[in-house]
């Protein structure tokens, strides 16, 4: 790799970091989103509905450009209208994590909603009848089972999210894709560098698949399969 190997490894680490952090953010947003979608308040349901509909209907790249380039200019314009002259620049790492988390929060909202609905109602009623408080029933009965139903869906979200992190190279974050670009331009061997980047992504995919399989086995322990 003509001395650019360490750069690729550095980029790989950033990619993994962006991926893990935005996945965590997406799961938090997803929990709140699912809660809003299932809430009794029509306003909450409407807001969550608009969020998931719009975010999933717009390409990630456009959302990312909108957040990274659009929001600062919007803030500057608004501040300008009030007579302030400020410059807003987002840190590309935080902007990347926030945008990817925001986008995939919409996908995990649907996953969590489905998982919540998959837990039989009778179990919650039974827990309540046993004298558990609402929060205790959620913690002991609902959440452990939701994981089991949510895991395959979350796994899919993670796979797509991880590949979407390549897009943050567009907003100038020094991750794997960007490192490959640097190497490709310096050495004039674009094919080798992008192939190396592709292989690193494949390593990540393969590792995620193995890990997800382990997690699913773990989450399904104690479940007897029919047939």
């Amino acid at each position, binding site marked *: 790799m003509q001395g650019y190997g360490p750069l690729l490894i550095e980029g790989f680490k950033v990619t993994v970091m962006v991926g893990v952090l935005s996945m965590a953010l997406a799961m938090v947003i997803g929990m709140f989103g699912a809660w809003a979608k299932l809430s009794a308040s029509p306003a909450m349901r409407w807001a969550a509905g608009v969020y998931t509909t719009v975010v999933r209907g717009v390409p990630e790249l456009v959302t990312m450009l909108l957040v990274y380039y659009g929001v600062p*200019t919007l803030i500057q314009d608004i501040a300008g209208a009030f007579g302030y002259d400020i410059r807003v620049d987002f840190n590309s790492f935080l902007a990347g994590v926030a945008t990817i988390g925001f986008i995939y929060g919409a996908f995990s909202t649907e996953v969590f909603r489905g998982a919540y609905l998959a837990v039989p109602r009778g179990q919650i009623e039974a827990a309540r009848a046993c004298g558990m408080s609402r929060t205790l029933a959620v913690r002991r009965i609902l959440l452990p089972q939701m994981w089991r139903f949510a895991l395959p869906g979350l796994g899919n979200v993670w796979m797509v999210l991880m590949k979407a992190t390549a897009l943050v190279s567009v907003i100038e974050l020094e991750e794997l*894709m960007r490192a490959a670009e640097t190497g490709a331009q310096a050495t004039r061997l674009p094919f080798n560098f992008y192939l190396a980047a592709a292989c690193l992504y494949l390593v990540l995919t393969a590792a995620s698949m193995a890990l997800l399989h382990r997690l699913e086995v773990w989450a399904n322990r104690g479940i007897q399969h029919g047939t």
Partner: protein
Amino acid sequence: MELIIESLPRLLSGTWLTIQITVLSVLFGLCLAVPLALLRLSRNWLVQAPTYAFIFFFRGTPLLVQLFLIYYGSGQFVPELQRVGLWTLFREAYFCGVLTLTLNTAAYTAEIIRGGIMGVPKGEIEAARACGMRGALLYRRIVLPKAFRLAWPAYTNEVIFLLQATSLVSIITLMDLTGVAGTIAERSFAFFEMYLTAAAIYLVLVYGVLFVFKRIEYRISGHLREVKPSRGPSVEAADIR
């Protein structure tokens, strides 16, 4: 606001390119996906392994990497490509964009169709065999139509995913909807307005595609509907991906 209206014709010409690329890649991708799915289901290890490797590569790496690998990566093999007369094609961003998207969607679609084929009930195949069908006839009349019907909802998602993924070709200099919005935004500094307008146009496209595909789904599942006063298909947000 007047900037948005002023630049609407250019945005719409970008939208046209987006639609072109999407349609081309969907059609070519589907043509490629069916044989791939069949090869993937082959019992011959020598056939199955390379097919699986192809699918794993295109599903396991980001589309952006694939795009750069083909568009910029081909620049490393100019003499070789010139010798076989392919360089004029690989020089064009349009060709590389469509090629990458086609290969990418073919890999995803092949897995979807494979799922459909595996979901065809054994009894139907046995019945067809008992009627004397086999080989290509069995696949053409029984297995593939059924598999397509089973795979249709997942395929709808894939097409919508592809439509959104075409926005990446703007990075390799093509003037699709995202590319046009970006160019206008850079000149006018109206980043927020331009990308918001582009997002709105994408939303319209996505829900347009969803509407058409739901209609088709409704048509091809006619025999499965309960007999009752029909209300037509409904398009729901939850159907994306």
